[in-house]
């Protein structure tokens, strides 16, 4: 049978019409302002970080990275990210699932609550944990009696990081899942899939790119968090110092090379995140666009 749906398409028109095009001087001015702004506020600091890190040569750079305290800070940061990112992956996914796919009372409240870490200063988030778990805090007595150390230890740092990075995955997924609706899941169920199969074969693949974005951003923030972690960490060298805290300590000790060497690692992480994100968009752009709508 001849396919009845083949239509002829008109050639695409130039998408910019004359009416909305600005005059040449305006265009040049706007572009220049943007580029200068980006250069001064984003590119220049990045260059300075690397310049300072290598100020005394490659040898000094690697020597300061090899320092025991520095290595311990790197390990701690990796550990904290390795715990908090998977936690937030699961939390974010289930929160987004609940909000996008079901109707329940207090949904608007929950949505607002998820945004809370974005709107509260990280220092406050840290202080909340001090008030909860500190020696004079709400649970302090009980924790002390049972010999559980949360503040000024890894658990406290993980808690603060989880709190601060909570919204990234959820925020990325909620609009995506809301837009996609329940249709695909209903189709999967009607074909005999159970809930788990519907999630694994249909829901998850539909949101995988959004999920990956969320995880990348969440990871970058988890490794770079300063404020909240600073309040709960106690700054014990070699024990509770994460990379951002260690940068501050080294800098305050006038160890510029050491400070900027660690900072360059963090900056490198940010760059890797951006490059990964761009590569994903280039490689799977069509597919990402396709899963975002029909």
């Amino acid at each position, binding site marked *: *049978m001849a*396919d*009845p*749906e*083949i239509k002829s398409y008109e050639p695409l028109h130039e998408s910019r019409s004359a009416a909305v095009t600005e005059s040449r001087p305006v265009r040049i001015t706007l572009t220049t302002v943007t580029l200068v702004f980006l250069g001064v506020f984003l590119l220049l600091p990045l260059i300075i970080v690397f310049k300072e890190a290598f100020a005394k040569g490659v040898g000094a750079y690697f020597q300061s990275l090899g320092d025991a305290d520095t290595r311990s800070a790197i390990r701690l940061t990796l550990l904290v990210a390795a715990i908090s990112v998977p936690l937030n992956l699961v939390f974010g996914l289930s929160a987004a699932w609940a909000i996008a796919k079901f109707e329940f009372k207090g949904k608007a409240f929950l949505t607002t609550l998820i945004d809370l870490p974005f709107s509260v200063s990280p220092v406050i988030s840290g202080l909340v944990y001090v008030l909860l778990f500190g020696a004079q805090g709400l649970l302090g007595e009980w924790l002390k009696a049972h010999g559980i150390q949360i503040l000024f230890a890894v658990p406290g740092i993980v808690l603060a990081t989880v709190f601060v990075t909570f919204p990234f995955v959820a925020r990325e997924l909620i609009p995506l899942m809301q837009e996609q609706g329940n*249709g*695909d899941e*209903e*189709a*999967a*169920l*009607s*074909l*005999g*899939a*159970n809930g788990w*199969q519907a999630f694994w*074969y*249909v829901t998850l*693949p*539909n949101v995988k790119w959004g999920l990956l974005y969320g995880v990348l951003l969440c990871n970058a923030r988890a490794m770079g968090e300063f404020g909240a972690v600073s309040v709960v960490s106690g700054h014990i060298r070699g024990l509770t110092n994460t990379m951002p805290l260690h940068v501050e300590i080294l800098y305050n000790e006038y160890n510029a090379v050491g400070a900027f060497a660690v900072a360059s690692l963090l900056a490198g992480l940010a760059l890797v995140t951006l490059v990964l994100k761009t590569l994903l968009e280039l490689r799977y752009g069509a*597919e990402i666009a*396709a*899963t975002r709508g*029909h």
Partner: protein
Amino acid sequence: MEVRVVNVRKEFERFPALHDVSLDIRSGELIALLGPSGSGKTTLLRLIAGLERPTKGAVFFGDEDASQKSIQERNVGFVFQHYALFRHMTVADNIGFGLKVRHGAARPPAQEIRRRALELLDLVQLSGLEKRYPAQLSGGQRQRVALARAMAIEPKVLLLDEPFGALDAQVRRELRRWLREIHDRTGHTTVFVTHDQEEALELADRVVVMSQGRIEQVGGADEIYDTPNSPFVYSFIGESSALPVKVENGEVWLADRPIGLPAPHAPSGEAQLYFRPHDVELVDGCSGCIAGTVAASRRVAGTRRVELEVGGERQRVEIELPVDHPAAQKSRVAFRPRRWKLFPTA
């Protein structure tokens, strides 16, 4: 598989979407649920599928009460209005999905699943497209893949929600004929929802006309069109004109004169007179007829549609005339409906 819907009521947050609906669907039948939006037709379809649970009442598949069964256990093939194809899977994987998610011995080997998928793809006349993704298909092709996917699980019942709603007119007509062919070949009991009466009347063995959460009438195309049982069905199906009249002494009266329509069995009192605009005879000299002044006259395809103002209250009614009929040029036209029906005004 025969399906019986028994006294089903469905409420959404206390708002009733279906009131006490009962319907018998025969085995192998192709049946249409027809109604305007908000009439409850999609809700009824989703209740049969198990996508919704009834607030009251039951749904039987054969002699089995299916109302307590989940959608997976009911084994129905559901085709969604917007297809709901899995966009990250190829056409073949989409069709094979229902077999792939089966457990244990019920799950055929991968090769068998693939063979079934290709076979179904052939049935829906899309051979060769098995490696495409849904985004690479046209609307009509997606709809056919959705149907193939629903049929892959060898369902007891096929349920289609506005299957051609999102397609353009020509494709709709083509797919309509094609769906009828598929149905005749496979013999599935099939229920589809539509708001397009032409689609329902042309395609279905029987049509269920619904309005405001109730079933108004169930019947074949002839029955629904020729003997509508309510003012709603009369005006919803096909063209119709209505006039407020009175029944007295076994005759129909318009204002103060009889219009030559005997109604010996109708109860006396106020009523609405319904008739089809094309089913009228023109009369000369009015003794027992409906006469009116021509208010407007439009050429519509093969006929001329004339709007008349009738009686002292200038009620507007429409009749259809042959294109070259001289009456269209006159300022007054008198006619009498050939077939008509009275509905007492409540």
